[in-house]
């Protein structure tokens, strides 16, 4: 087992996921299997290799500095679970 259930619970907190206590051992076991698999990458000699983040070496293009977006607030907020007066609603954050 390459990680403990405490490690997994900590990562879950970072990822904003809630793992039920009864499922934690199973999640930890499967998680460890995946980490064991990816551990084999340490065997590959990568000294001096530049990490590849994208398949094509393409530079960011610039576009003309003109207005292309119009206000679509209502349309874009339509799928939101809770809105009022054009704002997204969340539970109270300041007491």
């Amino acid at each position, binding site marked *: 087992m390459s*990680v403990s259930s405490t490690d*997994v619970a900590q*990562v*879950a907190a*970072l*990822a*904003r*996921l*809630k*793992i039920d206590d009864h499922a934690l051992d199973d*999640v930890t076991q*499967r*998680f460890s*299997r*995946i*980490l064991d*698999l*990816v*551990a*084999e*990458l*340490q065997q*590959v000699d*990568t000294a001096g*290799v*530049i*990490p*590849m*983040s*994208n*398949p*094509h070496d*393409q530079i*960011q*293009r610039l*576009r003309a500095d003109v207005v292309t977006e119009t206000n*679509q607030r209502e*349309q*874009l907020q*339509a*799928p*939101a*679970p*809770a809105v009022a007066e054009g704002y*997204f609603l*969340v*539970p*109270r*954050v300041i007491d």
Partner: protein
Amino acid sequence: MTAQDPMAFATASELSAMLAEGKTCSVELTQYFLERIKANDDHINSVVTLCEEQALASAKAADQRRRDNSHTALTGIPLLHKDIFCTQGIKTTCSSRMLENFVPPYDATVVQKLNEAGTVTLGKTNMDEFAMGSSTETSHFGLTRNPWDTERVPGGSSGGSAAAVAAGFAPLVTGTDTGGSIRQPAALCGITGLKPTYGRVSRLGIVAFASSLDQAGPMTRTVEDAALMLNAMAGHDPMDATSAARDDEDFTAGLSGSIQGLRIGLPKQYFSSDLDPAIASIVRSALDELVAEGAELVEVDLPLTHHGIATYYVIAPAEASANLSRYDGVRFGHRCDDAEDLTDLYLRSRSEGFGAEVQRRILVGTYALSAGFYDAYFKKAQQVRRLISDDFHRAFQDVDVIAGPAAPGVAFKFGEKAADPINMYMEDIYTLSVNLAGLPGMSVQAGFHAGLPVGLQLIGRAFDESTLLRVGHRFQLRTDWHKATPVLNGGAA
């Protein structure tokens, strides 16, 4: 209505000719395929949303365009979209509880382009949740069955799309491929599936999984239809920063060319003793057909092939964990009831909305990107990714196309690979390194083992889909494998 109905298994090219000759109209075709889906999909479960009213309205408009002579080859042809493409006014769920009620306010560029070409959207197809899986078993809306054997998976993640083509529910279906999600289900369902070069097709409006790997492509009965469909899907999109700024190409133009003298590379790692001998034998027979057309077979070396899985299962989850952080229960998607505070809202909305495999990948990705592990996992995987990509480039200095199996086996039974995530990940061993390198890849139906389809995979140089399509088309001119159709029993079994 039987599965052997000739209309059901006609190609888009054939239907287009019938429309041009006035032998049918789009409204008739649309009604026909809608009825066929309703009569036969209960047992297969390939379609998650059917949009009858919109489809008939588009069909009427398509018929008018044909009368006005302002049509394209695809005007009036019925089509299904994988439920990962945003469709304005039509639910787009990604087969997740998280997006169960999400109705996008806009169309994906791919959807918009196909609409402009005049295709008629019949509905949306089932998939693995957020495209994470190789069997379509992780869908929140139930599994999809393989039309060739309904006790077996159709592959995934575009399993609903592949099953729909195989079952004769539409001649054209869209798919997406992050590690093999077009090619592996195409192989397992006996159809043609093309993953274009990264950047060839716009990703705007495709629900993001792993942004440096995701690419959309056609899933069809024939290579000729894939070329026609790619013509409509491809092209530079200023709204996608990773879209390649290239001139439009006609992918049908070079289809009928010869493959005399073409050099086909066979990676020795793909044909090792690990490969099921039955699959190897079918792939070898398919290659013999290409040799008979004048192609030459050359052994090539892709030494890091077996590290592809580990590389992919760091990079894809890492990118997924970042992409899926947008589902917070605030702006769109599932929101839990009665949140105590903001953290509780995030935790419960996400845990209720995402299924087990999606959560697993978010965890792995978060871990790989976390402080202290970033260099050991994410940076290391990105370095190995470059080495894998370099190996392909080296091989392509000597050959025009690389060929091999699309999947390690035939369609497997439900639950067979569910116990250990690694077993499922191995399904993509021949396909995912192609995504890591950003190259085009295609699976074409190459034969049967124990009554189940086997795919031949062809891999090309970046932006050289034309050569892949030419080789695939030549193969389909010589063989009849792509014409085989399953018998649907309407759920009687």
